[in-house]
């Protein structure tokens, strides 16, 4: 039987075996990416929400995700310098720091997390899904790379439903713009059966991902669905959806999680397994990456586990039933894009967060409001009030940024979290007294 916890590098950080496996997968992908030109492979850059990995693979293209590169720069404490570099070049201090980290990284040689230069993309697949900034980001990259740029517009789910007009529009774009240009760039003829095969593989991994995310309903939760969740979503939101590697990884992870449930164990944190689950939280919004471990520690030191999060739905809302469907290959890609969290209107987001609080029996909602990300942040104060009103559970608000270290104030965040945990305690004792 394999060990469930492995000592990893650096020596003081503990990781699940699945985390080690995930890191190896990501490292392998970065090596493929940085060696792409040498190996005669072409590269497509695209985004996590609206990532059409199955389609990209149909053209033998390597998927490069600038958002993930920015996250890697944040985790490696490099993004601050990159952002400053972009601001020196004239980019406003007010705009998205993913964009500035990416542009700053380019200006400083575009060195990836494996220490090698990332290749120039052969095509920019601008999947305009759930985020306005994407549109400008790839216009900015197009200005630099001067490579073909494909625009795929995902209409916004403003009325909480997908209409036939939306799906038809996306399918037409796929047929008339996206696929012909990818054929042209790659020199590979589109084979719809190949796409079906990848989609079927996606659905398999998606089943396991949902099982893993929903394991947060157990008490204690065997996973942290926010900090740990970042690891779990990496492969399927990135370059592995539709691959055998993804199927293997999610099966492996599922077994690991099931094992922890059987043993009544909580999540594994960088300082070892959680001793006691004192608070069960739902978190809305992306995390901070520049101080990721420090941020996580503020939770697990207090015995707080995140049992469900909205951020783990930015690359697909599989727990609401969506699966890639090989029988409707283009329509399913359209519906996938339409359904991602940031393409959902505010009432839908509120419903989802209330469902999580109720179904995962959480103590309350915590919103991490990100300065960079209006797609998430605009409206979060109303979300907070509404969720509190509907569930009767306390909600709290903290402010950080994705990859800009200037906007992570550890003392402020810690203070607010401590106050929040006190609120949860008071609410509990109040309920007890009332009962």
């Amino acid at each position, binding site marked *: 039987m394999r060990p469930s916890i492995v000592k990893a590098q650096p020596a003081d950080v503990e990781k699940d075996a699945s985390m080690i496996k995930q890191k190896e997968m990501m490292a392998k992908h970065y090596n493929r990416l940085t060696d792409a030109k040498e190996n005669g492979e072409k590269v497509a850059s695209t985004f996590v929400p609206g990532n059409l990995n199955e389609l990209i693979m149909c053209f033998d293209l390597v998927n490069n995700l600038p958002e993930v590169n920015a996250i890697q720069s944040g985790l490696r404490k490099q993004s601050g310098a990159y952002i400053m570099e972009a601001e020196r070049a004239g980019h406003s201090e007010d705009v998205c720091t993913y964009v500035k980290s990416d542009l700053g990284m380019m200006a400083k040689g575009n060195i990836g997390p494996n220490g090698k230069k990332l290749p120039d993309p052969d095509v920019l697949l601008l999947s305009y899904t759930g985020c306005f900034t994407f549109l400008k980001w790839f216009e900015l990259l197009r200005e630099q790379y001067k490579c073909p740029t494909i625009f795929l517009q995902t209409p916004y789910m*403003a009325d909480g439903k997908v209409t036939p007009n939306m799906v038809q529009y996306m399918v037409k774009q796929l047929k008339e713009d996206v696929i012909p240009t990818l054929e042209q760039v790659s020199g590979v003829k589109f084979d719809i059966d190949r796409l079906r095969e990848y989609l079927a593989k996606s659905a398999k991994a998606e089943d396991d991902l949902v099982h893993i995310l929903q394991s947060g309903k157990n008490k204690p939760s065997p996973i942290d669905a926010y900090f740990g969740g970042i690891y779990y979503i990496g492969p399927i939101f990135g370059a592995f959806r539709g691959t055998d590697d993804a199927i293997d990884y999610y099966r492996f992870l599922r077994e690991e999680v099931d094992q922890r449930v059987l043993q009544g164990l909580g999540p594994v944190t960088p300082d070892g397994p959680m001793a006691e689950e004192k608070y069960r939280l739902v978190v809305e919004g992306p995390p901070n990456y520049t101080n990721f471990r420090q941020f996580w520690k503020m939770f697990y030191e207090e015995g707080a586990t995140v049992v469900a999060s909205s951020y783990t739905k930015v690359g697909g809302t599989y727990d609401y039933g969506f699966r890639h469907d090989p029988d409707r290959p283009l329509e399913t890609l359209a519906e996938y894009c339409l359904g991602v969290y940031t393409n959902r209107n505010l009432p839908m987001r509120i419903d989802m967060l209330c469902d999580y609080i109720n179904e995962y029996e959480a103590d309350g909602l915590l919103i991490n409001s990100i300065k960079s990300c209006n797609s998430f942040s605009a409206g979060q104060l109303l979300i907070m009030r509404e969720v509190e009103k509907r569930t009767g559970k306390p909600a709290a608000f903290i402010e950080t940024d994705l990859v800009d270290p200037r906007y992570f104030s550890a003392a402020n965040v810690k203070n607010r979290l401590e106050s929040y945990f006190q609120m949860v305690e008071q609410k509990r004792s109040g309920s007890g007294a009332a009962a």
Partner: protein
Amino acid sequence: MTNPTTAEIVARCQALYEDLYFTTAREWKKAKEGRKVIGYLPVYVPRELIHAAGMLPLGILGGGDNLEVIHGDAYYQSYICRIPRSTIELGVSGRLDFVDGMMFPSICDVIRNLSGMWKMLFPEVYTKYFDVPQTYKDEVGGTFYIGEMREFLEDLEGIAGRKITDEDINNSIVVYNENRQLVNELYRLRAEKPWQAPASEAYLIIRAGLVLPVEEHSVLLRQYIDAAAAETRSIKDNCRVVVTGMFCEQPPLNLIKSLELSGCYVVDDDFMLVSRWLLGDVPSDGDPVYELSQAFLHRSMSTAAKYEPDLAEKGQFLVRSVKETGAEGVIFASTSFCDPALLDRPMLQNVLKAADIPFIAFKYAENSGQMQPIREQAGTFVDSIKLWSAA
């Protein structure tokens, strides 16, 4: 009856601009049983469709510098622009309680999310996020846009309680064509003789069109153009500039006046693009929804909220604007925290650099009060242009 003077027309428009209770729109609604008002935010909505339903399209451009935001700030973090918070203020303070519907065009994530907030805060009001295509092929983006407009028309029919015919829409297209022609005539007058139609006046005249019935606004435009052209006004030694980036949250009127006081003649701008979004007349003798879609896809303005599919064409609208108006420089004036304008700005600046067109940049908010830094910056810009020209 004599034509009103420019001063009288401007005074009337200034009163409309300052009226945050939208009294004229309220009175229009009250004047006849069953009348409806549909509010809309920047940048563009096809007002012809609302007009064809017998309704009043009402432009909501935030609260400006006269509105005290009491409740609105509680809905937004400090790093989000001001227009959504002042728009919420207008809503929760009852200033929009006569509005039957609100349209939120696809311009950025803040306005997009505001549409969902409006649904939550004002469930009794028809709320429409108006998605427009960012791809411009007839059979792709065009078909989608036609579908979106038809869905919107169905909604309007539900609110109006009657069918909206093609004839209704074609009649409205004629009315808006005339209005657009007049708006463009005013812009031409200002570009040719900016001393005759100063930007601060032209701004108020165009802005009145967002709250008045279009027919009434066209009369007002005609009156102002005739009166302004006939008046004798002194020419100043000002520098001709194009201002860009003000397409959503509007500048305080004092900001426009400050630019003029610091030596600028504003000869082109992107203040209220809805007034001249469509370039040229929309044919009024065919399928009106198709014709509106064609105009949007192939004959509409460029702005930061719109995707430019052709790299070579990126930013060229600004270069053309400078050439056509004889401008000597460009001022990038963007709202703080405005993603579209601020992300676009470096690309546009690169295009201007390549075309050897000078520019400066600053940020503002609709309630900016301190104009001295802007005056100094603009004044220095003007001086430097004049020095370069002399050399």
